[in-house]
């Protein structure tokens, strides 16, 4: 007969507010096989853990059920505690009576009953748990960093400086990301490129970093410590080893009217192009969609002019495989657009602002390019329609963001700050102009941030209006902006020369494709989800994959950099060991009953099952059976549920365990739910009666 200990946590009042914890403990004590059942205010605290450890020793427990929060929260804590008391950690399970019970139900009888049943379910499972040992696997001490913006650059440099090899994959022809597009950065107004380009150069020249630009992750196999990554190097049509980056080809290219991605459509580029002068690598790429040779079959002007014969029209996409132990995802963000059919088809555009068709209504990144010394106007603020200097500019915050009827509820976090910065950049260049800002709330809780916003208002004279804008329309030379100032209660109409929309920060369009390949989860907006919002903010639920920067949610530069270093340190921790332990949740085959139908081999998503010959001493084949490679098996259990002869089981989630859980739910006859008063006189001896 089992000797199980049940430990019911009050979690302060988080559980006890709606669940009668004392009753849960009392009822648990009456379940067969339970040797001891106790409740305590904070089971995860030191005294709480001590209580468990003492009980294990005192009652010689062979299983523990901690009835508290979600196992995702504290399973590790309690498994560690029972190990310290000499119990195998896999003999400890958690009954989730907080997230799945006390927090989601009212204070009523069925809630406490549910808590008791959840305990009983786990008790029945633990009775059938087996002492297991974690699986040891070798760690490949190389990292993959996906995304070459400031977060990816920082993570790559930190890991590389820590002495490990890094594979950095960037989808665009150059690293740099959005930060390279910015003019100046808040709250210090230092030049973005001045602080970023040295890091870009470091990434390009670091001996530990292998840089794949114009490349994408095609496939990922394996698991923490042992990932196998297939990278697609898109055909650049230029041999970057031969090319010297002289730029002759760009000058001669006849196809010159392609909107530049880097300048966000405010300037044109050629079909063979280096995205911007500071690009790393400073090597061109041919945009095959627009190249005259690729579309019409004639031209080759670039090839003729190239002094090193680097242009290669025959180049094809190339696939390379890399083995890594950990992955940092730093795929960044893009901006929501107000277009009717933008890159985010799930979200409505802004018809009331003309669906982004008016050239003088631009977004924040376009304004950055206008204000940038390296931008299309050389840093002069000129409106796109006619190049005139705008005398009044209206900045609109919360476009897309905090706008549930357009499908987005979150705050984009960075717009309050960059809009204040924009008003300053504008006023520093157009002294007699007026900058108006429509805002809903000012969110500037960073170091020196609120002071910065006040400076925009007090020193640079930006006019802040608290309200949203209902419509923007063109009237001759001007844009009419119809907004409101709720502080005065007035409707406000402004004749503007240019309007700048602080549009929502969104994940890269289509990024969920990559997240699916990585097997990591993401939220409704397709921002990657962290393992725990507070305590594991840079890890994914999938071990060995870490998050950095705005792919996880809107972030400014300091935050992205900090998170990138945090992700790098997580990777370095992973690489600090030669071997790592994995949960022993793996499938095992009963060779006596296996009928060699090979359905498991076919269905296993990880090719962890192979065919094994069983031979007698003479080497004659007796039979063939399935065999699981435990270092490849991830424990999904598909094989166990599929096996025709029921010969595969999954450690930790065996058929026996699951059936006992099901049985326990429906067990009756045992009055586990006496009213508290009625139960007063019960003694443990009566329980089997």
């Amino acid at each position, binding site marked *: 007969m089992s000797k199980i200990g049940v430990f019911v946590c009050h979690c302060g009042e988080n559980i006890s507010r709606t669940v009668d914890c004392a009753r849960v403990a009392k009822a648990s004590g009456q379940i067969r096989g339970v040797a001891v059942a106790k409740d305590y205010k904070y089971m995860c605290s030191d005294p709480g853990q001590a209580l468990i450890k003492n009980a294990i020793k005192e009652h010689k427990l062979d299983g523990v059920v901690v009835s508290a929060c979600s196992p995702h929260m504290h399973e590790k804590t309690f498994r560690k505690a029972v190990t310290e008391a000499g119990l195998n950690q896999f003999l400890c399970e958690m009954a989730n009576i907080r997230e799945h019970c006390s927090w989601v139900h009212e204070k009523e009888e069925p809630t406490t009953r549910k808590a008791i049943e959840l305990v009983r379910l786990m008790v029945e499972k633990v009775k059938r748990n087996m002492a297991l040992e974690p699986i040891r696997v070798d760690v490949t001490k190389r990292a993959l960093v996906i995304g070459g913006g400031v977060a990816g650059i920082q993570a790559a440099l930190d890991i590389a400086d820590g002495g490990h090899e890094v594979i950095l994959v960037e989808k665009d022809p150059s690293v740099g990301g959005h930060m390279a597009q910015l003019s100046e950065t808040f709250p210090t107004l230092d030049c973005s490129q001045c602080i970023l380009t040295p890091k870009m150069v470091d990434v390009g020249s670091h001996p530990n970093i292998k840089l794949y630009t114009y490349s994408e992750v095609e496939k990922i196999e394996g698991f923490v410590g042992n990932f196998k990554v297939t990278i697609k190097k898109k055909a650049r049509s230029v041999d970057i080893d031969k090319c010297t980056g002289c730029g002759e080809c760009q000058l001669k290219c006849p196809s010159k009217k392609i909107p530049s991605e880097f300048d966000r459509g405010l300037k044109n580029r050629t079909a063979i192009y280096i995205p911007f002068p500071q690009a790393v690598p400073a090597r061109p790429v041919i945009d095959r969609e627009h190249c005259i040779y690729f579309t019409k079959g004639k031209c080759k002007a670039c090839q003729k002019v190239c002094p090193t014969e680097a242009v290669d029209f025959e180049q094809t996409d190339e696939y390379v495989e890399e083995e890594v132990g950990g992955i940092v995802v730093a795929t960044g963000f893009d901006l929501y657009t107000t277009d*009717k059919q933008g890159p985010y088809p799930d979200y409505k555009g*802004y*018809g009331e602002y*003309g*669906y982004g068709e008016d050239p003088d209504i631009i977004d924040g990144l376009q304004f950055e390019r206008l204000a940038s010394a390296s931008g299309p106007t050389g840093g002069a603020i000129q409106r796109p329609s006619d190049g005139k200097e705008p005398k009044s500019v209206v900045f609109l915050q919360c476009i897309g963001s905090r706008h549930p009827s357009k499908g987005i509820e979150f705050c984009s976090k960075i717009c309050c700050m960059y809009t204040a910065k924009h008003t300053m950049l504008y006023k520093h260049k157009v002294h007699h102009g007026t900058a108006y800002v429509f805002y809903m709330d000012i969110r500037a809780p960073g170091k020196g941030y609120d002071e910065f916003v006040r400076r925009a208002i007090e020193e640079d004279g930006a006019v802040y209006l608290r309200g949203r804008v209902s419509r923007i*329309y*063109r*009237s*001759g030379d001007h844009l*009419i902006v119809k907004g409101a100032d709720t502080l005065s209660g007035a409707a406000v109409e402004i004749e503007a020369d240019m309007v700048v929309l602080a549009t929502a920060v969104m994940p890269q369009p289509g990024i969920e494709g990559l997240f699916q390949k990585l097997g990591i989860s993401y939220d409704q907006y397709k921002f990657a989800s962290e393992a725990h919002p507070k305590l594991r903010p840079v890890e994914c639920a999938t071990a060995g994959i870490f998050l950095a920067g705005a792919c996880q949610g809107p972030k400014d530069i300091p935050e992205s950099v900090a998170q990138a270093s945090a992700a790098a340190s997580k990777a370095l921790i992973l690489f600090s060991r030669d071997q790592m332990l994995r949960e022993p949740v793996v499938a095992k085959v009963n060779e006596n009953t296996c009928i060699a139908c090979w359905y498991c081999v076919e269905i296993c998503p990880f090719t962890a099952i192979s065919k094994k010959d069983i031979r007698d001493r003479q080497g004659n084949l007796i039979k063939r059976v399935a065999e699981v490679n435990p270092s490849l098996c991830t424990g999904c259990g598909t094989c166990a549920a599929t096996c025709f002869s029921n010969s595969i089981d999954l450690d930790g989630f065996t058929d026996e365990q699951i059936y006992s859980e099901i049985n326990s739910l429906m067990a009756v006859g045992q009055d586990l739910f006496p009213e508290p008063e009625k139960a007063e006189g019960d003694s443990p001896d009566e329980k089997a009666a």
Partner: protein
Amino acid sequence: MTYAYYPGCSLKGTAIDYHTSALALAERLGIELKEMEDWVCCGASPIHQRNPALASGVANLLLSLSEGISKDVAVLCAACYHNMKKAEVEMREDGKKRNEVEELSGIPFNPEVRTRHFLDILDKDYGLNALKEKVVKPLSELRVACYYGCLLSRPPEIAFDDPEQPMIMERILEAAGAETVSWSHRLECCGASHAVPLTDAVLRLVNDVLASARDAGADIIACACPLCQANLDMRQEGIRAKLGVAHNLPAVYFTQLLGIACGATGKQVMIEKGMVSAVPLLRAKNLL
């Protein structure tokens, strides 16, 4: 092509020209607008301003009158369209609301009934290509400002085109050879529901709409609502008197222009009914 036609009160009074021109046009296109018998007033804006539930109850009564004619109710007036479509959409999507309205009106709701504005019928059912074939007198060189007003596309759930940037009337009139102008006040409210009690405010709103159309270079405004047309047409004199602005910009129904394009005479579409006459303009463009 037969539709249950609900004219509404204005079309039998101040907007008799809208009714007549629509019927003349429909006949030329081979569309049958069969008037529902014994219809009542939808109550326009005052009805929901008094009691929103009452508006839905009356709308349900109106929808039920289409039985035996067609599941599609053709409507020309934007206020009627708004009240009926809003009730119809709400009842179809919200079971609780549907029960309430059925209870109040004592009439079961038929979820297959659809309220259709005539613009939508021309665009989707009849089709622009078919329409083009019927055009005998293209509206060439006529610069038209298409005016939607507020009620045709608000709330967005009842809109039959993009609620913020509809192009349906432009598409239709362009198919008839007209040149349409791009202008800012296509969807701004003209204040028609206050035309009687708050005339001064309404003069301001109408003046804004007319000025916007004029600045965009329009010769004429095309309307799809009797309240809008009456307001834009009749208030020009008040604007001249009170605000000192003379617009002299004809505002007519899109059905009148289409009727002419399809060969109807001026009389057949009652083009002479407007306070600001469109006749001289249309003569100058050789359309009359």
